[in-house]
């Protein structure tokens, strides 16, 4: 049974990143990290599993609210886009370079939650929540990038491709804080887009597709295709991507791409849709989104 009353918890409010890491190494999986809280608080009231793994899952909340220097969105042409752990979805959407160079990401942020939750929720949090129907997670996976994880033992970078280990499981260790997401810059022929299918406008994804193609004229040099709500994690369709590498985009290619996408996904039945439907439309969605980016 869900509750109107939040379960008892102790809130930890570190004043610096170092303090946050120290607390994290002390509490490990018993501390849930609170950034925007838009997923976490719902999980607490619904008594669901949360983004930490400990037995006493909601015993401690480690708030990042007062850790300075995490709420940035920065861009330079070599490194690309750097999104700090506390940068909100609204903040990322408002960044001029995101609008200019990362249209897929922009679209995914725009359909993530509602205006109110986008003002609270963070892009990095969306990745960490590890939902198989994640909105920006899907666009980020299609784009490619690295997540910087920091612990008392040091700092490491994990490719987003290696970040998801299973249903709601990530490569983040319990004493690590995801401090930054890096998305490499676009190249000359880079195009990207995102499309989320829902039951009604404000809804979780029924099925979502994100693509990033490197185009040279009508020829696709390489492709990254990610989908959400079709597997235990957000996934890339690597077999389907191969069909696009180095070929000219024709109707014929798109038909085989669509067929491949439908067979590559492994969806399930749930309250939002059926496995059969998701499989059927996966191909249509991939085909349509490629048509769309090729037109633009």
């Amino acid at each position, binding site marked *: *049974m*869900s509750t109107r*009353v939040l379960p008892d918890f102790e809130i930890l409010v570190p004043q610096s990143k170092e303090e946050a890491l120290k607390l994290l190494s002390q509490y490990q999986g018993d501390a849930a990290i609170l950034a925007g809280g838009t997923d976490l608080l719902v999980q607490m009231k619904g008594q669901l599993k949360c983004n930490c793994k400990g037995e006493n899952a909601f015993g401690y909340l480690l708030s990042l609210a007062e850790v300075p220097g995490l709420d940035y969105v920065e861009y330079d042409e070599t490194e690309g886009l750097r999104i700090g752990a506390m940068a909100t979805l609204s903040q990322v959407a408002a960044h001029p370079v995101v609008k200019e160079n990362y249209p897929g990401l922009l679209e995914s942020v725009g359909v993530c939650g509602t205006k109110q939750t986008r003002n609270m929720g963070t892009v990095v949090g969306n990745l960490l929540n590890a939902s198989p129907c994640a909105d920006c997670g899907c666009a980020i996976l299609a784009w490619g990038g690295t997540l910087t994880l920091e612990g008392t033992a040091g700092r490491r970078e994990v490719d987003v491709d290696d970040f998801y280990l299973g249903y709601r499981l990530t490569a983040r260790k319990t004493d690590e804080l995801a401090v930054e997401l890096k998305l490499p810059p676009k190249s000359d022929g880079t195009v990207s887009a995102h499309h989320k299918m829902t039951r009604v406008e404000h809804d*979780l994804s029924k099925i979502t597709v994100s693509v990033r193609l490197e185009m040279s004229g009508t020829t696709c040099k390489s492709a990254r295709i990610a989908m959400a709500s079709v597997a235990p994690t957000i996934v890339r369709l690597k077999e389907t991507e191969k069909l696009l590498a180095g070929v000219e985009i024709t109707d014929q290619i798109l038909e085989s791409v669509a067929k491949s996408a439908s067979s590559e996904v492994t969806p399930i039945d749930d*309250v939002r849709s059926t496995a059969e439907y998701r499989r059927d439309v996966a191909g249509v969605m991939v085909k349509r989104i490629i048509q769309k980016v090729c037109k633009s």
Partner: protein
Amino acid sequence: MSELKIVGKSVPKVDAKIKVTGRAMYADDIHMPNALHGKIVRCMQYAHARVIKLDISRAQKMPGVVKILVPEDIEKYNTYNTGVMDLFAPDELNAVWGEIGEEPIFTKHVKHQGDALCGIIAKTEAEAEAAAEMVDVEYEPLPVYLTTEEASHPDAVQFTPEKPGNVAYRVPGGLFPEGFYGYGDIDKGFAESDLIYEEDYYVPKQKHCQMEPHSYIAQFDDQDRLNVWTSSQMPKPVQTKLHKLFGLPMSRIKVNQTVIGGGFGTRLGLIGEPYVCAMALAVPGRAIKLNYTREEDWVASETRHSGRFKLKMGFKKDGTPVVYDGYMSFEKGGYYTHGGVVWVSGILARGAYKFENFRFDGDAIFTNKVPCGAFRGYGNPQQALCMEQLIQRMCTDTGIDTIEWHKKWHREAGGDPWGFGVPTMNCGADEVLDRGVESFGWHEKKEINANQSGPKRRGTGMMLGVHCSAGFPVLLEHTVATVTLNEDATAIINCSISDLGCGNHTAITQIAAEALGFSMDDVFLNWGDSDANAFDIGAHASRTIWTAGRAVKEACEDAMKQVYAKAAKFLKVDPAELVMEDKKIFTKEAPDQIVDLKELLWKGIYAFMSPEDFQFKFDRGQIIGKASFMPFANNPGWYACFVEVEVDTETGELKVLECTYVNDIGQAINPAAVEGQLEGGIQQGLGFSLTEEMYYDENGLILNNSFTDYKMFGPTDMPKCDIQLVTTEEQYGPYGARGVGEAGLCAPGPAVGNAIFDAIGIQFNEAPFTPEKILKAIKGKGLFPDKRA
């Protein structure tokens, strides 16, 4: 009728400010000193089980726990049902269809997920919740029946001995001379038909999704009065039902109705009142607050009746409707709740078209789902969704123009549409259809959509319908209103009228102000106070304006009659000659001989003899007008709905592009409120047909019990809505108004179904029409399968 000054104007809602500022007092906003908190312990893991052992020993030791109520504690009270048929229909009829009140406050036989087992009373809500977790229950699981077929199997576990075969309700056909509800000869009708259409439909289990979760306070005070604060939409029947349940005299029960955060039927009758009152009676003197979580609302408060509808109709080649034969079988859920929803489906179907022969039968079978109860439309959305689609199939097959068919075969004024001996006085169906066709651009759109290609296909669809303005003649109709004229020539109306958010309090205030000749500011409606308010049924059946509006109007007229009598005596004229303008009373013949209303009322109360002649200037006494109004008519409004949809044939996705809705409501008391009411209905009607359905797993546990998992149409999903109010003559309703509360919901479903049919040539017999079903059908059958073959 003289020119109306306030009625017919879109004045701002009287409660707009308190709601916009957030200062409206919902039940949860009321904080009583030292209040305790209740929590109902519910069975969440089984949909059907017997409780073998209920052990509260661990829970009793939890901090803050004051008392725990178990089934044995409430045995001294009666059982009940949540509905109000026991009050709204005569005992003889209730006996015919077997009205029962089988529901105990706490049960040992769990009949649906969320059934109540016991109740915790603790110092805080958190402590009550924590203790609820510590109640240890052992169950004997029973077979779970999710369909009417499973539940009515001869070997099925019986839900209650009073209802053999688990048949909770059966349409009382035996009451009627033909032995069934209807008329004519059904077999002969089919024999004489050229065209026979039949389909087996499923209509979904829709949840009200009212914004305010159920919340209550109760206190058994030191004068031995049971006070309860509730946002019930039927406060007076709740008072009566609590009287029957707890055996307390009605003089010892006070129902304080709080601001209602949406109702739509979910607050019809009893919901959480029995629990909170039982808790209050267990700790005399202490106030108890009981809040439902949204999930509890989902698992334990009623839904629309879902089920199957076997419908068969016969027509002549020219479309003449020869015979209608329908059997609706509703999934009742775990408890009896309301008797007659299935029958109302038939009553409203019968009222629509001139079938030469008509039979409607149906039942409601217990199942292990959340009980079904009242929901805006009360059986009409379900039947209309099916009937209008089957009529469209006939029209499409034969090439008969659907608009012309509807125009030709709808019922007219007069007659006895429902079979209860009460004729209707008017019918605006033709005007409604004409206005809709024009405003929507029906013929133009048909032309534009005639030759489409590509993956996205547009289609248009329409429906015609009729609802009601009240429960009469099927159910009791009664409202009592009093109007007290204050000494400063302002007025207090006392009437237990519920406003579910649709503007009834505003419209009633407008009616009162109009009838009194006062400004809106001079009139205040005192509602929600069962001591001060006399009987009113509550808000249901689109009846508030029809019945309560007339009651308030007549009470005001009664007050003004007393005013004129006093003034006439003073002016020595015939009261019939008097008029009032700006609170000055005079005759047209002698306009300079004026009685000031304020002086007349003031001196009726502060009545002193004149020191000069020891006389009183006016008759002494305060004026209180009264009406106890029971209508003897029910003139329904006709409505038509036109929609255009776009179907993505590769994904099955559907967009509702436009919706034109036309209703002959007579005179709108407050047109803006009526439009808002209708748009809200359309929103729920679109959800009913396109997205809303409660899903269960095979164990009878609800899969979508939150707004995350259950999706209704939101504001951004709404199509462009064009609401057209057709003003037709209305002889009976107050200032010519008819009821309009439910019609909006009944309309869009079948219109959308018909638009899908127009777009892709496929009809669907199971709502909601989801992209999953649409795509599957297209893949299986292809577009326009009938034409292709």
